């Protein structure tokens, strides 16, 4: 009870801080054991300031913040400021930034706020984040944003599970399909046989059985209740509006494991920010939010009626639901879950082996991504023909290195700049729906490619263009290939076949621009998150490539991102699916060089 009272007092303080009751830039956060009630089940979990989700922290671009975090747990904890650009010692990752915050102790974070937008924070210790330790961050910009809205809400999604994170991980290790209740059954087989003939149904089964993989491996973790701002579907979180108002919704996916497809039937959404950064506005009917991403949208509900915010899990096993309404207590129709998707052989990366050209690279080329310079073309082809994605890892690695050396990646070619302009001309963004080509961020023939519920427009990564580039556009100084790897049957996850515990850090040099090539050879979608520096998604928009902190990589695809290496120190780089990260799809990144005092501090740390 006493803890609760303290937490309550602290929560009041934080709320007060927003209102200017406490000197600006000072925040208190406690990490507490809390009760969580989803409407479907109750459990104990971990929260901030006595609640899960924690508070919405409101910062101002340009201020220096001081945040005292007191650990009221009986175990160590941490807070990571997801997407924030800050000194690495303040990043909050135990074992990389600092040792963590021991039970009963207070750690004081101090850092300048150098950006604006929607972000979030969460524990980076064990499974405290899946257990409820997450909150939202809203940063007011120095300069007003180039669009207007009358009111705004944070819409923070989560996938609360009745089992603790530790128990989930143990169960997954014992039996990887423990939480998959969408497997193909005898009745599915009979249905298939009826639909496409016994022979076809059998050969489909055989093909999957030969690989010992399941077309239903879309959600590792089922049986959760999606939450919107801590409320389950029955508890119906509600945001009020007056008809005709423009409402800004700051969507944050704080789930441990769940991608959501989000729509508000009856309303178009204008996407204005992705991962906290301004994008050229895109009007969509539905969008997919990867784990840890944020999207800001503006909606204009004109009618005096309730609108349902419907967040369907990608595997269609559950939905989150909230409401926008003119008055409390109103509700609108809740759509039914659509049919669960099934993975196809394209998602399995079968295309890699069988037809070398049909993977994500091909899609890139098809987008007009293909650089005009012969040597650059060679590069993409060589990677392809030489690498054989299903070849054993060590060789693949060597070859990628050889490619680099041979291809002159570290010699920036100014001509490569041209390709961005080409892309623009060729890509035809903003064309009406029928003219848009296949989504290059899904393997051709993928079972995962989303479609808007009522035939409208579904946001693609290809639609995202930065409103203003953060960095001068320049060619990458080198490319690093990261194959996303795993063994579903053993529930091991890794990068280039090596899990975190056995991996060497990735070393980057301060001042370089690194191009990361993600090759997803697993059957799952991985939201890759680099701490401390921006991830510039290469979606063919060249200098207007969007600036993100999470890059989602669908199965059977190759996706590129570039990073201006401008933050010395050591950083985490990982898949944001909690159980994948914990199982080893994680790397430490060390940025060497940079300002002398930072470099000295880093050298000290590496020795120690």
């Amino acid at each position: 009870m006493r803890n609760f009272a303290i937490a309550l007092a602290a929560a009041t303080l934080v709320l007060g801080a927003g209102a200017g009751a406490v000197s600006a830039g000072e925040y208190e956060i406690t990490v507490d054991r809390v009760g969580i009630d989803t409407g479907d089940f109750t459990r104990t979990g971990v929260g901030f300031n006595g609640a899960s989700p924690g508070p919405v922290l409101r910062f101002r671009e340009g201020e220096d913040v001081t945040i005292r975090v007191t650990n009221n747990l009986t175990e160590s904890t941490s807070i990571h400021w997801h997407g924030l650009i800050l000194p690495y010692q303040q990043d909050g990752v135990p074992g990389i930034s600092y040792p963590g915050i021991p039970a009963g102790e207070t750690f004081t974070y101090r850092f300048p706020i150098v950006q604006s937008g929607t972000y979030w924070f969460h524990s980076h210790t064990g499974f405290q984040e899946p257990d409820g330790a997450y909150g939202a961050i809203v940063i007011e910009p120095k300069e007003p944003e180039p669009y207007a809205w009358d009111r705004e809400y944070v819409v923070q999604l989560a996938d609360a599970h009745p089992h603790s994170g530790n128990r989930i991980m143990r169960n997954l290790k014992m039996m990887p399909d423990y939480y998959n209740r969408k497997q193909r059954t005898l009745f599915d087989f009979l249905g298939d046989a009826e639909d496409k003939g016994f022979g076809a149904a059998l050969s489909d089964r055989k093909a999957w059985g030969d690989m010992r993989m399941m077309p239903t491996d879309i959600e590792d973790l089922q049986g959760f209740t999606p939450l919107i701002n801590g409320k389950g579907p029955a508890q119906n979180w509600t945001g009020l509006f007056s008809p005709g108002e423009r409402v800004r919704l700051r969507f944050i996916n704080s789930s441990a494991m769940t991608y959501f497809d989000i729509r508000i039937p009856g309303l178009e959404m204008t996407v204005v920010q992705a991962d906290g950064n301004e994008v050229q506005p895109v009007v969509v009917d539905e969008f997919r939010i990867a784990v840890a991403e944020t999207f800001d949208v503006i909606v204009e509900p004109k009618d005096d009626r309730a609108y349902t915010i419907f967040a369907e899990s990608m595997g269609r096993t559950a939905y989150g639901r909230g409401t926008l309404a003119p008055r409390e207590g109103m509700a609108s129709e809740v759509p039914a879950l659509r049919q669960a998707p099934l993975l196809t052989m394209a998602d399995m990366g079968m295309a890699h082996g069988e037809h070398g050209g049909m993977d994500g690279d091909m899609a890139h080329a098809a987008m007009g991504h293909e650089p005009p310079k012969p040597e650059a073309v060679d590069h993409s082809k060589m990677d392809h023909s030489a690498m054989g994605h299903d070849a054993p890892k060590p060789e693949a690695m060597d070859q990628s290195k050889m490619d680099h050396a041979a291809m002159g990646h570290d010699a920036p070619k100014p001509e490569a700049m041209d390709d961005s302009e080409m892309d623009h001309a060729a890509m035809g963004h903003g064309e009406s729906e029928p003219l848009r080509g296949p989504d290059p961020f899904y393997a051709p023939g993928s079972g995962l490619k989303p479609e808007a519920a009522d035939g409208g427009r579904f946001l693609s990564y290809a639609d995202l263009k930065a409103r203003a580039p953060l960095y001068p556009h320049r060619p990458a100084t080198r490319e690093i290939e990261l194959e996303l790897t795993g063994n579903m049957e053993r529930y091991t996850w890794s990068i280039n076949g090596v899990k975190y515990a056995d991996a060497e850090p990735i070393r980057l040099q301060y001042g370089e621009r690194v191009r990361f090539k993600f090759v997803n050879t697993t059957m799952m979608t991985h939201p890759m998150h680099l701490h401390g520096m921006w991830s510039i998604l290469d979606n063919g928009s060249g200098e207007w490539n969007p600036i993100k902190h999470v890059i989602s990589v669908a199965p059977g695809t190759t996706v590129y991102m570039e990073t201006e290496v401008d933050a010395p120190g050591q950083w985490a780089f990982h898949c944001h699916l909690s159980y994948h990260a914990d199982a080893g799809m994680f790397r430490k990144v060390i940025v060497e060089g940079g300002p002398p005092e930072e470099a000295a501090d880093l050298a000290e740390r590496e020795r120690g």
Partner: protein
Amino acid sequence: MHRFWKRLAGALIPAALAASAAEAEPLIWGIQVEQAEYRIGEGSDVAAWDFDVLAGSDELKVVWRSEGEYATGEEAFETLENQLRLQTPVTDFFDAVAGVRLDTPKGPDRIHGVIGLHGLTRQWFEVDADLFVSDHPSFRFEVEYEGLITNRIVFVPSIEFDLPFTDDAATGQGAFGPTLEVGGRISYDLVDRLVSPYVGVHYERKFGETADLARADGEEAGAVFFVIGTRFMF
């Protein structure tokens, strides 16, 4: 085997030094009870179990495997074996196994060394192939399949084949006289995958010299049982 010992060392040594590694991997542990059942037959009824208790890492697990059959009429263990096994991955889907097996049923005790393979074949067959090395060597092959009727009702056919290589009259084994067990169990996942009660049939048949020894002992060479039991996983 070189790889095996390297992994053994790799798994055991860091455990002691885990404090230095921020990313110390947590211990994986669990209990998998494949069978805990009562077999009702024409002769004596039998209480039987088959479980694994395991602990370790991705690279190396220690497994206590126990199997037993207790004849309620005779109030004696027809079979009672315990194995302590080390298990390490050798391919994407197969683990190598090495350990010891101690048999302590009615009659004389036996100790065997165990080497084997444990894993998942194409088309999802769960396979155990073990060679038991001792004065009375034998080979055992077990295969099991989980057929999903629905996502909660599961049909599990299984076959176990034991082949002794030498005579061991004291334990009723005749050289190259195999014992075959065939089962079919339908389970329902009552609580998650924690408790899955089942009913089924279990058939046992001895062949060759082993069958002769059984008959000489006044037993049938083959028997069919109706079974009721539960799977359990924690």
